[in-house]
């Protein structure tokens, strides 16, 4: 089994506050990793460390290493732009860019220099189909992405990441605020996609992790409490904190 990310002794600070503490584990390729944990436990921060989005915040500092395919993504001359093309991200709040549906999907690809309109057309159809949105928008690709419903916007954001053909997809609570049908659509998309991608899914909904994740990690107050196969975590967790959280006995 191939390792995609290797996280070694990771500490992360916002100014003086230590938000992630001594994280150590490996993320296997072509699997879905679910990350669960209460609010404020550092799930989003961890996810954003993987594509260096935390860099945008002044005063962020990390110690330890994150290796992607055995290469340290925090080493000084590492190409962050290339990293973000390899490691795509869908945010908790779906935010299409202020442009048409079509342009949203091809945004990243255009920036990489692809301009052949036939190629782009195909890419748009393929990406929107994979994110289960194509049928709903195929007749209005030129309208603004911001006119879509919340669930559609979330799937559009997934499509624009898929269009980049990344290796890893980070999803931060992609289904919060979505109805069960949209949620099911996104979950379906993910299970199909893991064939080609490594997927890391942060979710506040433990049932969702149980449904789609191969492995599940439990975070609490900046620490990785436990990680294991989803079956094991949800049936025979080793730590009492994990058990309390998944059974809902957690404050």
């Amino acid at each position, binding site marked *: 089994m191939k390792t995609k990310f290797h996280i070694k002794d990771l500490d992360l600070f916002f100014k003086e506050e230590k938000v992630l503490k001594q994280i150590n584990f490996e993320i296997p390729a072509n699997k879905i990793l679910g990350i669960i944990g209460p609010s404020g436990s550092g799930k989003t921060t961890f996810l954003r460390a993987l*594509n260096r*989005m935390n860099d*945008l915040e*002044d005063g962020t500092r990390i110690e330890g290493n994150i290796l992607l395919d055995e290469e340290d993504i925090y080493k000084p001359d590492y190409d962050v*732009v*290339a990293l*973000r*093309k390899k490691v*795509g*991200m869908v*945010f908790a*709040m779906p*935010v*299409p*860019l*202020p*442009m048409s549906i079509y342009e949203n999907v091809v*945004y*990243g690809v255009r*920036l*990489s220099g692809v301009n052949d309109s036939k190629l782009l057309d195909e890419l748009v159809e393929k990406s929107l189909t994979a994110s289960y949105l194509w049928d709903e928008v195929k007749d209005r690709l030129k309208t603004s992405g911001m006119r879509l419903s919340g669930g559609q916007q979330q799937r559009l*954001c997934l499509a*624009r*990441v898929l269009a*980049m053909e990344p290796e890893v997809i980070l999803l931060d609570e992609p289904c919060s605020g979505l109805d069960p049908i949209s949620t099911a659509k996104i979950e379906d998309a993910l299970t199909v996609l893991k064939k080609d991608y490594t997927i890391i899914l942060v979710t506040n909904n433990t049932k969702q992790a149980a449904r789609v994740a191969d492995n599940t990690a439990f975070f609490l107050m900046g620490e990785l409490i436990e990680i294991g196969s989803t079956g094991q975590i949800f049936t025979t967790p080793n730590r009492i904190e994990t058990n309390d959280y998944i059974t809902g006995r957690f404050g």
Partner: protein
Amino acid sequence: MKLIGEKGVKRILMLTAFSAISALLLIALFILNEGLPFIFKYGVKDFLFSSDWNPHLGKYGIYPMIVASLWVTFGALVIGAPLGVAGAFFLTEYVPKSIMRIIKPTIELLAAIPSVVYGFIGVMVLAPLIRNNFGGPGLSLLAASIILGIMILPTVISISIDSIMAVPQSYREGSLALGATTWQTIHMVTVKASKSGIIASIILGMGRAIGETMAVIMVAGNSVNIPHSPLDSVRTLTANIALEMSYATGLHRQALFATGVVLFIGIIILNSIASVVLRKRAVKK
């Protein structure tokens, strides 16, 4: 008791607002009243489009001053707008927020420097520099454009910064997360989302440039002629009024008021355009 207080405050506020508005109306009425009759008596066409300004011969053509004002304003924009907008983008997108919190008030302080000081620097430093390097009298259209270009920077920069900062952070993050560079994010997303605010900042800067008087009198040279090169001495509409008002009487005085009418209308048009542009942005939000 409380209710009376509330009502009292409301009355006082209304009175203040009303007096500000009526002062504005009174000024407008006064200028129009003094200036408009002259324009119609002398003839709109002769007044606006004749190049003959000779008050002691009864000739009042302000065409050279209109042209000079337009050129000076245009020159100020050519210098101030790109610098200001680029500076605003640099400060918001590349400079850490902690540093920006110091720089922005500093730039806004530039607006508080009296215009006579700008004029002084123009006379002492800029004019000799132009005279020695490019020839001509030094006090010129070019000098006025440069000084005004600097004077409008605070307006352009601070309004542009406000509108760039109003662009949701999520747009930037969305773009960067897709592998865009900071520069690509600026020109594909941020510029588009802040466009109307930037245009408004330039229009307001333009209003400032047209209306500026003291600094322009000091550096523009003030001879009444249609400029053929940036090195020529020019006189703007504002300079014309300020220079001659102190001794003008009769028709001459009315002609100066009429010059004010022309300025007034020009600035009202500009400000209306700016507020329409800004309102359009507010509606879009």
